[in-house]
């Protein structure tokens, strides 16, 4: 009881349920309790939002205080003695739960939250055995009210915790949800009945502690216990948000957020989240094909397809050398695939013409992604060039909002082509400035960075790469002028567009395309004529389309949900992905196919293309990746030293 005088280390000592805890000054009682593994039920409190203490679920007894205190909003003080198990606390919890269930519809059997609902769980753990209020006298509200085409609201299930309202106030700043009316009639509503327009609505059902807000996409698709959870990385953009891929019956049912404070801070954007079901498409390539000169198509086994591809590639390179072969990967490749593809191109096919996209990006360097996502919060100012960075990596907006509102970072959103000296004037005096730009705006970003650095400020750049693994394939050297790890490639070759143009003009006679369907889609005439004129077109891809139709040798590939490996996000964080779905084809993995191809082309020592084998070779080749491991950032400066 009489605690020792506070030592001056900024720590505060208190006793919770007889256990002594020392936590930093200013810690909330709730966090102090979880530090020692004591669970306090909460509804309105949320780890990413400021406390409001409106739900009163977390009331606990604090010695010497006449009333119970909300743990989510009480700051610890020296010598506090807290009891979370006292009779008064238990009674308060029972009372709160009975009250929350007063008009609750109890339709857990048809509720999408049933099985992962805090109201169910806490009622089971802390609630009263019975209610004193008859089930027949509940006040009913509207059910299945669409708040937008993505989110559905069940007003009866809402426990008025305010989390959704605060999410819009604090996290996105868009203020789209309000609480209407008073007393028992209080209901969540959109302002003026307008549908929600936010690009981050999909987070609402996850922050809602009950089944009041649910996803339209996931409506009645599965119960939580049906789902198989696989840790994955959102494949929609190169921000690399961590997700749980929840699947049932070999179909992805939803992406759920997997909090990584360094990357997504637990938020996903709707584009990424709701892309989940697109992986269930059955329009897939399943069997290898070989097309002969007359256009006849033969169904073959994968071994024969690989042999045939090797034979044809050798035939053209024997006459014209490796230079007549163009190799294209894409940001849909994993790091291992990209690394193996460039190795195949450079060591076996002996062609320098290799790229992963059409836009030309010469002399890339690791300085372009020196700024980490979480580091944004410790900048003095951040300059965002144009809207593209935030369009191409939407969750970045939420990090910028957090940095601006909670960390006092000055966020300057300027035009994509803003003059460097205007920007330096606007930023003024700053300790550390982040410069965020899209990869198509590299030149301007470099100019801005050097102008800022010229004024003596520390500058770190972040470049938003396009495509899921856009950063990884660059690190892995799927570039005409750079080998893995940003080492110069000698000799430098042609970039993506030049490869296609040379194929049209005939100087490139063979194309090897790995998962290039996405980057070549919608290019029309250029791709079509290149594919028509090239003598050999070896395609490894997942979906039918122009490439599959034009392929002289076609080998089906695996989608990102069906394979394992690693991908790298825009700040250089190397993250593992795992197979969430069974493969749509019996063809072995791309790594094995590429290794088989290398073998058929006469290369020695390529092994079987086993994932771990390739990953080890990759890590040995690129030390920054070896240091990054799984989940760390590839740090080039460190690796070089």
């Amino acid at each position, binding site marked *: 009881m009489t605690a020792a005088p506070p030592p001056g280390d900024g720590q505060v000592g208190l006793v919770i349920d007889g256990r002594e805890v020392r936590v930093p000054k200013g810690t909330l009682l709730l966090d102090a309790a979880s530090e020692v593994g004591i669970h306090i039920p909460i509804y309105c409190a949320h780890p990413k939002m400021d406390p409001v203490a409106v739900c009163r679920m977390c009331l606990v007894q604090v010695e010497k205080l006449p009333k119970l205190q909300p743990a989510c909003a009480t700051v610890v003080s020296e010598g506090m003695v807290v009891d979370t198990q006292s009779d008064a606390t238990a009674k308060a919890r029972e009372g709160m739960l009975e009250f929350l269930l007063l008009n609750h519809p109890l*339709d857990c*059997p*048809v509720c999408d939250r*049933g099985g992962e609902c805090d109201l169910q769980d806490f009622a089971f753990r802390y609630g009263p055995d019975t209610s*004193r*209020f*008859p*089930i*027949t*006298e509940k006040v009913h509200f509207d*059910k*299945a009210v669409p708040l937008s085409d993505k989110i559905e609201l069940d007003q009866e299930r809402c426990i008025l915790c305010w989390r959704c309202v605060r999410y819009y106030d604090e996290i996105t700043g868009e203020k789209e949800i309000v609480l209407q009316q008073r007393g028992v009639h209080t209901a969540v509503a959109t302002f003026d009945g307008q549908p929600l327009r936010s690009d981050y609505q999909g987070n609402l059902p996850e922050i809602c502690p009950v089944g009041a807000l649910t996803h339209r996409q996931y*409506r*009645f*698709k599965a*119960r939580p*216990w*049906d789902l198989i959870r696989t840790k994955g990385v959102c494949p929609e953009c190169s921000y690399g948000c961590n997700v749980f891929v929840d699947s049932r*019956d070999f179909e992805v049912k939803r992406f759920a957020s997997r909090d990584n404070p360094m990357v997504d801070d637990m938020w996903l954007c709707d584009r990424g989240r709701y892309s989940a079901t697109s992986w269930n498409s059955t329009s897939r390539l399943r069997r290898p094909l070989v097309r002969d000169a007359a256009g006849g198509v033969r169904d073959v086994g994968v071994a024969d397809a690989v042999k045939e591809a090797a034979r044809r590639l050798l035939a053209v390179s024997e006459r014209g050398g490796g230079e007549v072969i163009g190799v294209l990967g894409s940001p849909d490749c994993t790091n291992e695939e990209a690394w193996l593809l460039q190795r195949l191109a450079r060591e076996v096919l002996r062609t320098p013409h290799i790229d992963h996209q059409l836009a030309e990006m010469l002399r890339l360097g690791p300085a372009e992604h020196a700024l980490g996502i979480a580091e944004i919060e410790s900048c003095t100012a951040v300059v965002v060039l144009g809207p593209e960075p935030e369009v191409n990596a939407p969750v970045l907006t939420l990090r910028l909002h957090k940095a601006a509102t909670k960390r006092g970072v000055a966020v300057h959103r300027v035009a994509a082509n803003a003059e460097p000296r205007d920007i330096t004037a606007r930023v003024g005096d700053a300790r550390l400035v982040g410069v965020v730009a899209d990869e198509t705006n590299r030149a301007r970003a470099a100019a801005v960075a050097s102008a800022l650095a010229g004024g003596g400020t520390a500058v770190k750049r972040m470049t938003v790469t396009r495509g899921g693994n856009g950063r990884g394939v660059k690190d892995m050297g799927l570039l005409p002028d750079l080998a893995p790890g940003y080492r110069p490639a000698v000799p430098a070759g042609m970039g993506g567009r030049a490869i296609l143009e040379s194929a049209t003009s005939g100087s490139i006679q063979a194309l090897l395309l790995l998962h290039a369907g996405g980057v070549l889609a919608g290019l029309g005439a250029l791709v079509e004529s290149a594919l028509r004129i090239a003598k050999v077109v070896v395609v490894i891809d997942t979906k039918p389309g122009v490439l599959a139709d034009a392929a002289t040798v076609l080998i089906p590939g695996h989608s990102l949900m069906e394979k394992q490996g690693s991908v790298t996000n825009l700040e250089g964080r190397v993250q593992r992905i795992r197979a969430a779905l069974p493969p749509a084809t019996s063809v072995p993995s791309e790594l094995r196919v590429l290794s088989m191809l290398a073998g058929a082309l006469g290369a020695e020592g390529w092994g079987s293309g086993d994932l771990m084998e390739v990953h080890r070779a990759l890590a040995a080749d690129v030390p920054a990746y070896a240091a990054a491991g799984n989940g760390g950032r590839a740090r080039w400066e460190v690796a070089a030293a």
Partner: protein
Amino acid sequence: MFKEIAKGMAFTLKQMLSKPITLQWPEEQKPSPPRHRGRHILHRYDNGLEKCIGCELCAAACPVGCIYVGSAENDPAHPVSPGERYAERYEINLMRCIYCGYCAEACPTEAITLGPRYELADYRRERLVATKEDLLEAWPGFEKSLADNPRGAGADQREQAGRAPGVSPRVAWEDREGAVGQAGRGSPAAGQEGLAPHVPTVATPPKRNPG
């Protein structure tokens, strides 16, 4: 010793003259006791709506995991069940089922019960995975309802019209000579050949005063 032989013969003779208890199955059927746990039945309400709401609680309760439920959202204009959710697919693997009745216990709407039917042998395994069509109770009004609302309640019986009276698992059983229905109910009402009248089992809870 002779006494013993005589005693034995007398017993044999007595048994020879009494009525045999052997049942000439399958021509003759043995009625199941009223609470027999045989093949499952999925029930309907009187208006034909399915009681099952696709909640999967039966599947969760099943100790052997032999129930598969795939649910979907009701079209309010053509509901299959009351409320928002219904079972689009409902399958029970009868080869795995141990007929414990936990599914019936777990069901919040009393949609599933175990019925009187015990003849479950078959030559093909596939046929022993009972689908929703196999399990669902017939509904007398379905022909008329189909005319009113082709996608609503009873639509799933369209294919089965020709199969009457084997339409319903329960009826297929109850229709047999001498067999007793699950709840011991009598023969089908006139004009509803082969279809047992349905008595709803979910009652509105009685109002009680807060106490």
